[in-house]
């Protein structure tokens, strides 16, 4: 109710700035039929007397939003919540049952890399074929051909049939073609989920590039980090409806909280929550300590001092690709920082048994105050919590030798006078 009113207001406002809008989705409904044992045959149709039994369900219900040019919209939600359906309707692959979609500019959808590749044809021939499927003209492909091949790092293999490519080569070529399509509106569905770290980074760089060039992007992902980093706005779809729409942090936090609660409700993997602790506990945080330079444990630090957060953990089984993270909040709720091993490019292949991990700050930049620390271990996509200790640890910072004391942090800035004219003397 609340949400729809907010959207209504937004709708009215942006309508006036008509030329700024890139995508307008107007009360969109999409229905699917679920057939019980439907067979796509004439025999079946004739014998069953045209009465196929099916259930109808609404995959999208009254979706309504406007996206301005140059904005990046993230769509999150559980599997089956309608994310891909929405993207396909935006791409004109599916038609809505009610409502309408209008887009301004050339739309390009990257729903699957390498759709339309023919295994018998060479890389070169597939570049032209796939390019034209994605809407590039022969001339455009000619101009970009070397760039595409260079980006895919396939110079030596370009005249080889793609059936002889490794899956990595295949993906690189497909991606290189896809990113050279030059649309005004780009729709991306989970492409970043495939490929290794280096490939994902390349994808992200390219997306940032699109963003800075003022392209409109709609982006479906299960990676909350990517959503947080890339998007200006996020829609959370739940059972075909917009649950929340708004700034990325707000929506993502709400979503993660919901997912955690939901897992807990379903009793998935014996979720346990006691007070401000939740998670499936396949790997547990046993102890969190704050250490000073000499290694002694304490909770009172000075600005500029060495500061170490040490986490002792125990994994009850082999855990693949865990992500360790902490969050430091000032007592009044300001989030200072939330580093994790994935964001900081510390790749942990797997852990088993007991262990210790440390987050070391050589010179603590925090200004005086009281701080709460959250420690957590998550799966690689930062969605499933193994163990999450929400604001369970506290430490204080005192001024010490530092005089600067207003605000949250001391940033490494310097003052320097560049010029000073004595104007009074001239008068």
């Amino acid at each position: 109710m609340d949400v729809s009113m907010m959207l209504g207001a937004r709708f009215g406002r942006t309508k006036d700035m008509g030329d700024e809008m890139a995508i307008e989705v107007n009360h969109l409904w999409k229905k699917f039929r679920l057939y019980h044992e439907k067979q796509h045959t004439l025999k079946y149709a004739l014998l069953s007397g045209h009465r196929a039994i099916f259930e109808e369900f609404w995959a999208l219900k009254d979706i309504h939003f406007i996206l301005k040019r140059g904005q990046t919209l993230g769509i999150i939600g559980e599997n089956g919540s309608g994310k891909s359906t929405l993207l396909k309707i935006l791409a004109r692959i599916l038609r809505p049952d009610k409502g309408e979609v209008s887009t301004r500019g050339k739309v390009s959808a990257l729903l699957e890399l390498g759709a339309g590749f023919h295994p018998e044809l060479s890389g070169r021939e597939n570049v032209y074929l796939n390019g034209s499927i994605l809407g590039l003209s022969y001339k455009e492909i000619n101009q970009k051909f070397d760039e595409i091949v260079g980006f895919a790092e396939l110079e030596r293999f370009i005249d080889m049939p793609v059936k002889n490519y490794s899956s990595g080569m295949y993906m690189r070529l497909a991606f290189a073609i896809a990113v050279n399509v030059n649309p005004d509106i780009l729709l991306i569905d989970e492409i970043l989920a495939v490929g290794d770290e280096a490939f994902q980074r390349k994808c992200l760089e390219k997306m940032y590039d699109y963003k800075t060039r003022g392209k409109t992007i709609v982006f479906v992902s299960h990676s909350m980090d990517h959503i947080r980093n890339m998007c200006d706005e996020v829609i959370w779809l739940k059972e075909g409806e917009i649950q929340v729409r708004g700034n990325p942090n707000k929506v993502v936090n709400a979503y993660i909280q919901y997912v955690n609660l939901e897992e807990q409700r379903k009793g998935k993997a014996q979720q346990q929550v006691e007070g401000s602790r939740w998670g499936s506990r396949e790997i547990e945080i046993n102890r969190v300590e704050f250490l000073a330079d000499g290694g002694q444990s304490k909770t009172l630090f000075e600005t500029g001092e060495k500061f170490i957060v040490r986490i002792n953990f125990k994994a009850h089984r082999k855990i693949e690709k865990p992500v360790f993270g902490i969050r430091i909040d000032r007592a009044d709720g300001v989030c200072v920082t939330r580093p994790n091993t994935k964001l900081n490019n510390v790749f942990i292949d797997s852990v088993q048994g007991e262990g210790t991990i440390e987050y070391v700050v050589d010179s603590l930049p925090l200004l005086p105050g009281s701080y709460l620390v959250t420690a957590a271990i998550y799966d690689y996509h930062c969605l499933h919590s193994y163990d999450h200790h929400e604001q369970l640890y506290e430490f204080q910072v005192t001024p010490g030798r530092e005089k600067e004391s207003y605000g949250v942090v001391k940033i490494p800035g310097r003052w320097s006078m560049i010029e000073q004219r004595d104007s009074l003397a001239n008068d």
Partner: protein
Amino acid sequence: MVEKLKELFVFRELLLNLVKRELKVKYKKSILGFFWSLLNPILTTIVFTFVFAVLLRIQPPVLRYGAIFSFPVFLLCALLPWNFLSISLSLSINSIVGNGNLVKKVYFPREILPSSTVLANLINFCLELLVLFVLLAFLGSRFFLYLPLLIAITIIQTLFTIGMCLIFSCLNVYFRDIQHLLGIILMIWFYATPIIYPFEYVLQMSHKLPWLPFVYKLNPMATFVLAYRSILYECQPPSLFLLGYAVVVSLLTLYFGYLFFNAYEPTFAEEI
């Protein structure tokens, strides 16, 4: 409608590339390439000539001066256009379902898929015709007299074929067993068209069944085959009445096929 055509124009390069893809894939695997595809009509001609001309003694009509008298040539003049239709239909019927991956993931006008198969086969057909021309020239036929008319007929037949392929490829999305049915339909259609026997045989029956020749000519493929044969084999202009009929039927088929296809196209991505 106008917008649809504009869009088709925008995607013309895709159509061209898909035609190229089809031809390349077809001929890529062998050095002989195109010549392999000649093998089918050659072998068919040999078998049919043995069965129908030698064993069953079917006689092509005796013709006036300037034409040749040969059952294999008589057969080929009709068999090649027939193959164009039947191969186009059997390949394109699966063009939507077979390219399901593409249909579900990328937007483009779907009619491009069956059309590209037809066009690829048209190119194949034209190459076969060229080979037939060489053979006819070698035999001293004056087939070239009405060559422009032949080109016109080929274009009309292409429109007809595209119309048929739009209908069948669309039906196949909803009824996958149409594919098997198509084989039977094509077999009946083949024998209902004067390909292995001259139309004169049908005319001879008209004293017993006076309506038979009329019903025969309702079949647009019979009209096409008769037109091809009169130009290539008999070196005569085809009946203008028949040609007019072929144009009307072809345009109607294309129009109806297009409407039919477009009515169901929006749900393709869901049904595949």
